[in-house]
């Protein structure tokens, strides 16, 4: 492609070429200026390169910005990964049995009456109990901190669901059809939030985070915990945040503010 275009480029006058070079430099400058674009560009890994432990993906959820009754993150996740609401699957299962990769939890302080709401999803622990108990090795933690289920070797025993303190995993009870090509899911296997691994690998943010920003809530922030320059690390180093069930010592990847 490039080779074919070379003669045409050589045929350009020098002033045109200078203009093009200048224009490209300007565009690059604009993209870099807000800072965020620079970081996301730097994170995009080549397709043939394996994930490394130099990166650890994490999330910060500010519950004070999480709107009461808003389910944008849940809807976006369901749509992106093809589960639950509106999909054609799990018609025979009870509501409590259906897949739920992310859910909204409403909390109320019994003494003061203060209520707030937050999204609960897989916390992508550094020491995940689901991985500890998995008898086949299907439940595993990727080098970059994303906890996944390898459904090729999952036997559907559901020990991981029992072990998870966050109730983050679901079991698929029915034959499914029309799955998303990048989010395979099927009967007899356990599944949970993947931090939208297909998007993360492409240098994009998970669907829930994107939807939260599109809805102008900006309650969710995704980034690299191991990169001190990332917006996530910057905020975590300056602001107070909480791990849910910090007493378990799991060192979760998802942290909350305002709980």
């Amino acid at each position: 492609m490039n080779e074919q275009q070379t003669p045409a480029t050589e045929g350009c006058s020098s002033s045109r070429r200078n203009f093009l070079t200048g224009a490209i430099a300007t565009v690059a400058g604009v993209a870099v200026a807000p800072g965020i674009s620079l970081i996301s560009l730097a994170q995009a890994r080549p397709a043939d390169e394996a994930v490394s432990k130099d990166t650890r993906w994490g999330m910060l959820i500010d519950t004070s910005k999480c709107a009461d009754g808003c389910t944008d993150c849940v809807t976006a996740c369901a749509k992106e990964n093809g589960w639950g609401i509106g999909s054609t699957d799990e018609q025979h299962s009870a509501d409590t049995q259906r897949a739920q990769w992310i859910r909204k939890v409403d909390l109320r302080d019994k003494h003061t009456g203060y209520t707030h709401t937050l999204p609960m999803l897989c916390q992508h622990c550094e020491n995940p109990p689901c991985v500890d108990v998995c008898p086949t090795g299907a439940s595993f933690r990727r080098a970059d901190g994303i906890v996944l289920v390898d459904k090729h070797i999952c036997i559907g025993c559901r020990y991981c669901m029992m072990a998870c303190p966050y109730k983050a995993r679901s079991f698929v009870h029915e034959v499914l059809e029309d799955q998303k090509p990048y989010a395979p899911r099927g009967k007899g296997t356990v599944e949970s939030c993947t931090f939208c691994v297909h998007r993360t690998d492409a240098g994009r943010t998970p669907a829930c985070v994107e939807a939260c920003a599109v809805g102008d809530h900006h309650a969710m922030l995704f980034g690299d915990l191991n990169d001190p320059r990332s917006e996530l690390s910057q905020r975590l180093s300056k602001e107070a945040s909480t791990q849910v069930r910090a007493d378990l010592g799991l060192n979760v990847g998802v942290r909350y503010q305002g709980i």
Partner: protein
Amino acid sequence: MISLAKWSRLLALAVVAFVLLTAPARAEEEAEGGRVPMPNEVEAKGKQCVQPTDVMRRNHMQFILHHRDETMHKGIRTKQYSLKECINCHVQPKADGSYPSIHTKEHFCNSCHTYAAVHIDCFECHATHPVGNASDVAAKTETGPQSMDKAPAAGGMAQ
């Protein structure tokens, strides 16, 4: 003692007789497509597969098995041996715009696996057709799965 030449003549005669005698039966079988369910020659989108056809026929399972572990555990998402790319190229919309079902002979994978009597589990989880604006996907979503009624709060899933 019969000479070699005589043996040859006898053999040739036997072959000719066999061909002549069984011709009507074979013609009938060929007309019906034979007793064996032959694989359906499904047109792919591209002109050239990632490996020569004979190599793919024999080894495609090794290629995608290796690639599956690389992708799942290491996040390597090259396209060459990706099942998603197999589907993108080999599964094309029918004349009415819908994609062939994995359970029919029109589907590239199922066509050959039926012939080879090999049961595969890939498509219990993996998508059986490329993602696009295929009319069947849209129609299926619009006609309304029951769960839409049960959970109106979170909105529809129109593609």
